[in-house]
């Protein structure tokens, strides 16, 4: 009976343990920004793709490929316009040099035009992407993004 109790007690911590989160291949490089208040200005959101990986650009060459896309929620005192994405770079897998892809690798910046009232602001959202390395592709992922900035 003591042994049974010990077993149960030991498992209690496991009951609500969440499943391990899938590994992200893109990181959001969070930087607090200061912008002009009450006029159209641009937030720059910097992302880093893990070395050895690439993600489809916002405009991949095939409609089967999953584009990189940012979605930001509304914030009080902030009007958000459509995000502006950088141009991708041409890439081909070594095993299929004829298939040209349009990708981001290393660092890329997504620009978000905003008009904000004076004061501190925070916008929450996510970046959706799908990454590959030189031999395999990983399921689509969403990366939480938290944009903190001040309008003066």
């Amino acid at each position: 009976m003591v042994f049974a109790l010990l077993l149960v007690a030991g498992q209690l911590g496991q009951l609500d343990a969440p499943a391990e989160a899938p590994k992200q291949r893109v990181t959001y490089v969070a930087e607090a920004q200061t912008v002009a208040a009450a006029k159209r200005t641009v937030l720059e959101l910097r992302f880093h793709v893990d070395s050895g990986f690439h993600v489809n650009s916002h405009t991949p060459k095939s409609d089967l490929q999953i584009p990189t896309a940012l979605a930001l929620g509304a914030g009080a005192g902030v009007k958000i316009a459509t995000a502006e994405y950088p141009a991708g770079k041409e890439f081909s897998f070594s095993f299929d040099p004829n298939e040209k892809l349009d990708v981001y690798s290393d660092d890329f910046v997504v620009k978000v035009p905003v008009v904000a009232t004076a004061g501190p602001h925070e916008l929450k959202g996510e970046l959706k992407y799908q990454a590959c390395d030189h031999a395999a592709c990983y399921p689509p992922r969403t990366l939480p993004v938290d944009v903190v900035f001040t309008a003066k």
Partner: protein
Amino acid sequence: MAIDLIATGSPVEGEVYVGRKLILIAVMVAGISLLVWAGVHNARERRLEMQQAAIPKATLSSDTAGSADASSPEQMTPKLQGKAAPAFTLVDLDGKKVSLADYKGKPVFVNFWATWCEPCKLEMPWLEDFSKKYKPQGLVVLGISTDDGGKDLVAKTAKKLGVSYPILLKNDKIEDAYGLEYMPQSFYVDKTGKVLIATAGISDGQGGKDAIEANIQKLLAAGGQ
């Protein structure tokens, strides 16, 4: 039966017994409490780790090209290799149920792919060739799509690639059952239902096709005719 404590100064037998019992109970309660605390603490730590992992972090990226990644296909050990292939019942593009058990006693090549996976789409025409070439020797090729969208896109893509072997649609259990982390992943299941070979990713150039064919030949050779 008790010896008078006051008269002799010696411990009363009954009280000693009760005392020992109380100590034992106290130790047990303390032990159980410690285990419960450890479990709760562990759960809390895991939740914190999860939250930390979800929070975007600034990174001082100084990675150099070619750095090894511990979870890349080359680094991962095929977890199912040598073990029984997890059973499944999935639906094909015509809505018909297909189970791995339907092919008991036959060598089965199970290939996981997705419409968004370029390496997958490169190798599927090879698999079609092998499916036809080795069908007389009993080989069964099954393609399992891991797409989240509807079957129409999967069917359209498979047709465009010239695939005629069965294409099955995933359910919500199979990715965990087979430990899928990237595409393509293939499992060579022998006649006894054991995963003889498990592979992930695609090799460069013609080596990729040759490697798959070599594995198929091993699969057919395993366990006799």
